[in-house]
């Protein structure tokens, strides 16, 4: 099966980057100026307790041994232990993974729903008023900080109109959809302009492609040409754009989760930083990076599904 070969190849190619990521995560605790354990315990511990924690975390061994153990455990899904929360990091992170993933997928779908019609409209009316307005709107919303958009949406749709809850994750699928609508919309509002811009450009490219003229000469209707030839060709760059910007999307979600008090990975990160919970920070560093790499892999796969040429390589 080409899928396995394809994924396997990409994973092998990702090995150097994965090593680099693990090194960054590993060093996160060792580069802390001063004694990380004492900082974590905020000076409330006896020397014996500190030594005990050092031993428990394995931080009394040579660095190289520690790193090997760190990587070995991470591969098996063991991300260490949070001293502050007295729980395995993998468990803490695992609980937060669902709301964050839900939010990211929701936001991506919303931004596609916003971007595709507007991009099609802008491309069809290029250099006319609608096109200019859509592009201007993109510039403005690119400059809007997500925490500010979030607060405006809270003010308008939450506090004033009371249409949507302003915090939390909700219960059940419907509850999640309802609770996360405003956070997802916030993210979609800064992701959509980027999608619109690239989709519009890709559509203009695709519209002038010779095979579109050929399709027209065959007597196909404009709508069939648009959906069968132009959008399909233009969807390839969009998949790439989404994948390339997954890091940006995750960055945005960190802030948006804080604004809307969604108990996801982003809020966990901010909380861990303020409580100096280094094992959690380490674990999150790994998880975030793996999310980015995984998404890029999925995008490559989607790309290969749309355009079969890639498979042959």
């Amino acid at each position, binding site marked *: 099966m080409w899928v396995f070969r394809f994924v396997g190849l990409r994973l092998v190619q990702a090995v*150097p*980057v994965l090593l*680099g*990521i693990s*090194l*960054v995560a590993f060093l*996160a605790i060792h*580069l*802390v*100026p001063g004694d990380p354990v004492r900082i974590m315990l905020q000076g409330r511990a006896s020397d014996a307790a500190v030594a005990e924690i050092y031993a428990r975390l394995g931080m009394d061994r040579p660095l190289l041994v520690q790193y090997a153990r760190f990587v070995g455990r991470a591969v098996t899904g063991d991300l260490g232990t949070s001293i502050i929360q007295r729980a395995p990091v993998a468990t803490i992170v695992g609980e937060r993974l669902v709301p964050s993933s839900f939010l990211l997928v929701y936001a991506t779908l919303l931004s596609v729903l916003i971007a595709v019609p507007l991009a099609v409209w802008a491309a069809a009316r290029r250099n006319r008023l609608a096109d200019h307005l859509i592009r201007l709107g993109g*510039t*403005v919303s*690119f*400059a*809007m*900080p*997500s*925490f*500010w958009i979030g*607060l*405006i949406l*809270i*003010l308008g749709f939450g*506090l004033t109109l009371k249409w949507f809850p302003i915090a939390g994750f909700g219960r059940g699928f419907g509850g999640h959809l309802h609770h996360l609508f405003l956070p997802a919309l916030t993210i979609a509002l800064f992701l959509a302009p*980027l999608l619109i811009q690239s989709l519009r*450009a890709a559509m203009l490219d695709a519209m002038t492609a010779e095979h579109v003229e050929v399709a027209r000469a065959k007597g196909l209707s404009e709508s069939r040409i648009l959906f069968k030839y132009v959008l399909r060709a233009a969807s390839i760059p969009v998949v790439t*754009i989404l994948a*390339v*910007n*997954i*890091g*940006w*999307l*995750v*960055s*945005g979600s*960190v*802030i948006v989760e*804080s*604004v809307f008090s969604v108990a996801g990975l982003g809020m966990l*990160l*901010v909380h*861990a*930083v*303020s409580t*100096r919970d*280094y094992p959690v*920070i380490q674990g*999150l*560093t790994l998880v*975030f*990076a793996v999310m*980015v*790499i995984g998404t890029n892999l999925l995008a490559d796969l989607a790309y290969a599904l749309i355009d079969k040429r890639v498979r042959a390589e």
Partner: protein
Amino acid sequence: MTTTTLAPSALRAEVARWSPSLWIGIGLLAFIVLAGLFAPWLTPYDPLRQDYGAALRAPDAAHWFGTDSLGRDLFTRSLYAIRTDLVIGFWTTYVPMLIGVLLGAYAGLKGGWFDAVLMRVIDTALAFPFLVLIIVILAILGPGTQNIYIAVFLVGWTMYARLARAEMLVESGKDYILAARTLGFPTARILLRHALPNVINSSIVFSMSDFVLNILLVSGLSFLGLGVPAPTPEWGAMVAEGKDFMQQAWWISTLPGLMIVLTGVALALLGDGLTHRLGDRHVTGH
């Protein structure tokens, strides 16, 4: 590229080629910079002085943006914050650009182990969500303005290095370079003369949106409480301070946030105009 001589006629010709978005961007940015420079003369208030008697006042003729929970005039604080945010945004954009362009151009020129190592470092850095990496570095170093600088300097150069390296590779594959090589001319010198303007161009275009992103980053970090410490006026921190007062005092968060939008739009328009002016060759990603 056009010449850089600034004879009056050349300058006039240059200005004649500016697009409306470039004009509006430059005008808006100049307006904002001047407002920041002359803040003390534009407002009678002190950005730091607390006045509990005047707390949570809605916008009116005396307080255009209203006052916050400590009775500080928000318009005054927004003006002074121009200094904070633009200065941090400037340095966090252009120091990494300088580092990145030099490293990337050198790697593209030399190749070999230096290029290989640099590319692995860049790939690793770009595998992290940018904000997450910055937050992790701040978690190590502790929050604060100085550590924001260090964190962004450590990470921000990677995009520029990648851009500059790509430009250098394109240029070094061109026919005239090959011709020069076959004739035994020193390629490094030719490349620097021809490639550097291109390398810089694409980086300058990218730097305009990077500037916006960095202002959003700094204000975002301050919003999360990891950035510019209180009571220094800073837009993101001001928005955060208003978060708990949304219901009774909507202006605390919304109006300072508008300043971020205004500055971002100015820079984005400027970037748009520059992209067209410098030739529409470079599509920038983030």
